[in-house]
């Protein structure tokens, strides 16, 4: 996790989210709905965004996990973290760690040319991340404060680089 290895003995019922929060003290990933509906628990699991609340820890032994705590390089924030600050992409902050991990994974998917439900031609090789594309691709992350407009602007800025 975040570049270091941890050996844990866990009840099989432990989700990846609970293992991170309760056993490793990594409280960035948040427990929102705990049913895969809100995205607050999103982490990068072997490089891909995933809901840690529906992943059993025991089923992901040996996985490479990156949480919000692992995005910055020392004191240097990840470009998406900087952009969320610059664009005021949060209010209470509860969904933000999930939003950021999801955005990191989403940009990788777009880079790989993955289409989305709003892509006009799914066979097209390249994706241009319009605001509509960003909204669709980030729909698995809810924000009860309603910071969506600024979240989209923050992601669009980084996507355009």
């Amino acid at each position, binding site marked *: 996790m975040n570049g270091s290895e941890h050996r844990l003995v866990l*009840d099989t019922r432990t989700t990846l989210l609970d293992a991170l929060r309760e056993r490793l003290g990594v409280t960035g990933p948040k427990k929102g709905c*705990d049913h*895969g509906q809100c995205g607050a628990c999103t982490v990068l699991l072997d490089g*891909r965004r995933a809901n840690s609340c*529906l992943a059993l820890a025991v089923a992901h032994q040996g996985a490479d996990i990156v949480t919000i705590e692992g995005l910055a390089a020392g004191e240097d924030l990840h470009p998406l973290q900087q952009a969320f600050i610059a664009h005021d992409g949060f209010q209470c902050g509860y969904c933000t760690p999930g939003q950021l991990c999801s955005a990191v994974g989403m940009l990788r998917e777009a880079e790989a040319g993955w289409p989305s439900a709003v892509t006009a031609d799914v066979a097209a090789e390249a994706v241009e991340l319009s605001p509509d594309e960003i909204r669709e691709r980030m729909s698995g992350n809810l924000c009860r404060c309603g910071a969506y407009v600024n979240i989209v602007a923050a992601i669009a800025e980084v996507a355009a680089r």
Partner: protein
Amino acid sequence: MRPFQYERAADPAGAIATLAARPDAVFLGGGTNLVDLMKLGVATPRLLVDVSRLPLDRVETLPGGRVRIGAAVRNSDLAAHPIIRRAYPVLSQALLAGASGQLRNLATVGGNLMQRTRCVYFQDVTKPCNKRQPGSGCPARAGHHRDLAILGTSDACVATHPSDMAVAMAALDAAVHVQGPRGPRVVSVNELHRLPGDDPRRDTVLEHGELITAVELPALPLAARSRYRKVRDRASYAFALVSLASAIHVEDGVVRDVRVAFGGVGPRPWRAWRAEAALRGGPATEAAFRAAAEAELAEARPLPDNAFKVPLARNLLVRTLLDQAGGQSR
């Protein structure tokens, strides 16, 4: 959550043998539905046999142009696969219309087919439900049923199958490859899911211990112009009220071939056989599309709060086929 054992399967045969010896065991794919149902107390397995890492994770073209999709392929990988995007766009679109990016990264093809209904009464163990607890009753008929089925229902159950992916596969006539304690077999995706009748407990025709290993798509030139359209309460990340997987080939104004399947209307992905039969060989006109939709929906048994699905399904079929036929010679 009830305590359970966990095993990671080394090969399909081992996984099947383990399940065959344990009636209280189930296969675990990506877990996006099963783990949730375990949290809710709806699923109470004593043993999980993890099949998500079996070497069933490839998409390959077979001789003759068929495409074989391993059951452990993740939904996101399948949606993004170049072969699927080019030759079967309806399948990419259906996958992308389902769930969220982070759920699609976990969910497997086999798990998607085997997911359970999202009927609120099925998911709430404090409520009666004939699917969860046979004979306990179905509160949905008199209660919340706005999102439930209008076709293929019974007095015992009006649940819908929630998958988008399966609707596209139904239109494509996909073949589901299964291995089990009594050997391998192939089941059409259109025969995989059962109608509830008076025994809504079992969603599929699979026996305990039978494992989906692959889904095979036939070579189907028509599919290159196929499409998935989904109507839902919000623009993204919601289950279908009604969805449609369709493809049509029109020549000189005549329907040479057509494929139509609905989602959100039945206990299984609803292949519209009657509509197809009504259309094939006939004129590609709005009136014909409307008559075909009405033929399919004649047997709908809507409830008060989901009666809107009948005209919605009809209009969705008419509008989409008009769009798809529009660019072809009339």
